């Protein structure tokens, strides 16, 4: 059960997120790409060389996937979320595959994602309900999906699979 104070705080954060999303439109490089294994067979030409942003996003996806079970079990720790916040902030300055395709909304989506991770952290520190923690975990992924819908829809199905059903 979420307390009244938590509920107010959540609403405030959601309001901020909503405004952020509205303000930036609907895309972000946060969701640019999440391929897992794109190494070329030896000698093959024409293979994509991952951009720094692609590398950052692969790492983000791997982190979220590896923590999915803990999120489901309600055993995510503050330290694990802090590590993600610290590592995933790199996407805000990483170069994209086609920088010209990065829309102004990217920064907003990236910010929204990091805010959602902070929200997730708070649900842990305040020992919020499992549902509230899952909601925060999934909300972070939702910002990724929203961004990818504008920038690059390829990874969306993979991201959706990371979400945990309450």
């Amino acid at each position, binding site marked *: 059960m979420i307390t009244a104070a938590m509920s107010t705080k959540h609403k405030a954060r959601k309001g901020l997120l909503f405004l952020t999303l509205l303000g930036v439109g609907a895309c972000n490089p946060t969701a640019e790409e999440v391929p897992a294994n794109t190494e070329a067979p030896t000698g*093959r030409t024409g293979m994509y060389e991952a951009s720094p942003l692609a590398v950052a996003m692969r790492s983000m996806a791997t982190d979220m996937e590896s923590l999915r079970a803990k999120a489901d079990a309600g055993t995510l720790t503050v330290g694990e979320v802090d590590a993600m916040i610290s590592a995933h902030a790199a996407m805000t300055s990483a170069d994209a595959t086609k920088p010209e395709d990065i829309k102004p909304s990217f920064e907003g989506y990236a910010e929204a994602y990091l805010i959602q991770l902070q929200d997730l952290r708070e649900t842990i520190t305040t020992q919020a309900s499992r549902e509230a923690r899952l909601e925060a975990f999934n909300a972070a992924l939702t910002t990724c999906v929203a961004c990818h819908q504008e920038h690059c829809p390829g990874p969306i199905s993979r991201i959706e699979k990371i979400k945990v059903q309450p």
Partner: protein
Amino acid sequence: MKRILIPALALLAACTSPTENPVAEVAYDYFGDTIQIADTTSLAGLLGQLQGGTDSVYGTFAAPISSVCQVKGCWMQLDLGTGEEALVRFKDYGFFVPMDAASEMAFVEGSLSVDTLSVEWLRHQAEDAGESDSAIAAIQSPKVSYSVLAVGVALAQKERATEEDPAPHDHSSHEH
């Protein structure tokens, strides 16, 4: 009986030894899962199952690549030989194919279905294919298309230049 059968089997084995098979083995480059070329089934048969009402069919089939995403190689189109194409995407965005693979024969393992491609996807695909802004803006409606979610792709290895064969053969100065 055994006295006859055993030498006969030995003779048969010797005659069918792979080392004496004159057919050269083709080497493949694999993307995603290492699929089994030997499992390749008829594409026409798979399409027939779909046309017969099956929602999706899973298998390994071969078809020439008509185009590849020119940004990352994250999708490709196959020529089905029926005047239609199939859009191939890769499971969990987990692997890409070479961007210069158009016209190569692809062996693909995955799930084939008929899908409705959204306007957003079609525009994204057109962008990746390098189409003009006006062509992209002209995309206004979804498209029903064959669609494949592939777990693996195999392409025959290309001949690679070696030090013994550094330059293409020049035919201009002589006749064969």
